[in-house]
């Protein structure tokens, strides 16, 4: 029998190792899996590489991990956020590495990782400092830079509803990176607000099929433990 539902946040994150690369869904606070991130903080894994749109937001989630010096490297598109002071300070002191990626390139690198594609060429970034040092091809008269796919050890994702197969639906723009990140990690761990019996999700409405998901944990809608 397939049952990806785990009873606690602690168990959901128990196997995350030091030095892991972790995809984290969210755009600002929308779709940020705060309960999973808090559980990861408690679990203690360190020297992490976090791949996410922002480098912490509002003093919660990734910001707490950064503050606790668990993060070695951030791969993100927009590190600057309100109250992201922890990241700013460590970055200025040279104590956290930053790989800055244009937002669409970040999403597509993750999509490629999940789709088994090594990389792709995109016009985005050509002729800018974010395109420097990258292979360039002229395709149909347009200069394009090569961008490598991203795969990770773990994905931490927030979704709305799940069944025991790990089929997922999302709420509003909290969907953002969730569906692509779920495809690109060896272990995708999802926090949801609601568990449904098999058949409770309309197959026409499933956004992330369960094949991409390894663990599901149900938390209160506000992300409280």
């Amino acid at each position: 029998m397939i049952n990806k539902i785990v009873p606690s946040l602690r168990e959901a994150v128990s196997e995350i190792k030091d030095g892991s690369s972790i995809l984290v869904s969210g755009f600002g606070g929308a779709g940020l899996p705060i309960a999973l991130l808090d559980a990861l903080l408690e679990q203690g894994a360190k020297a992490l590489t976090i791949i996410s749109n922002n480098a912490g937001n509002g003093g919660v989630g990734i910001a707490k991990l950064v503050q606790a010096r668990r993060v070695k490297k951030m791969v993100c598109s927009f590190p600057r956020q309100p109250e992201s002071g922890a990241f700013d300070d460590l970055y200025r002191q040279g104590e956290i590495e930053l790989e800055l990626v244009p937002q669409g390139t970040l999403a597509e690198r993750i999509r490629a990782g999940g789709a088994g594609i090594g990389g792709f060429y995109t016009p985005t970034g050509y002729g800018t400092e974010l395109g420097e040092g990258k292979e360039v091809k002229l395709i149909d008269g347009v200069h394009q830079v090569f961008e490598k796919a991203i795969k990770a050890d773990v994905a931490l994702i927030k979704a709305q509803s799940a069944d025991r197969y790990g089929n997922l639906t999302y709420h509003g723009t909290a969907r953002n990176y969730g569906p692509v990140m779920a495809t690109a990690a060896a272990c995708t761990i999802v926090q949801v607000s609601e568990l449904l019996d098999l058949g409770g999700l309309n197959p026409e409405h499933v956004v992330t099929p369960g094949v991409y998901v390894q663990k599901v944990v149900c938390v209160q809608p506000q992300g409280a433990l």
Partner: protein
Amino acid sequence: MTHPELQNIQRRTQAQIAQRILEDIPDGAHVNLGIGQPMSLSNYLPKDREILLHSENGLLGMGPLAQGDQIDPEIVNAGKQAVTMMPGAALFHHADSFAMIRGGHIDCCVLGAFQVSVKGDLANWRTSDPKAIPAVGGAMDLALGVKKLFVMMEHMTKTGQSKIVERCTYPLTALEAVDCIYTDLATIEVTPHGLVAIDWVEGLSFEQLVALTGVPMKRKGRA
């Protein structure tokens, strides 16, 4: 510092620039508004045209900012403010959202800028301040992906320098990307043959506009 030429000139307000840009956005257009000033266009959407707003974080058919019990912290715009969804809105994930942008399916994007060059190079994501935390967001994808790129900005910096320049000195967002520049002084199109002034504020002569801008420019309809 106000230029002597500008002392008696009524510059366009942010609202007037927004309304001027909207004159150039046709019925049925799918439009992305950048963070900052461009977002204000959503306050002036004309009732006689259907203009669908795209938000990079996965929403097409974005409505006005949410108020009171409309606020849902998981329905937000690119600036992370809570927004509403219009009837007919669609939600999609981030990779699809940027496929929509890069694939040329979005008709028009309005971005702010630090500098625009005479060739339409755009610099809008970081200054030369070494202490600033670099953050690029979706600007590079938007600048190259959309069919028409409009820039909304002040014509001059606070210290009186033109923001329309021969070559950008700030780090570039994209090369030869901007189609039209809308400022508090003028509307200036970027063409393969150089800048063309379309309109400018009353009381300012074309010659004064060129002198203030400091780069070569033609006027619409004249050689």
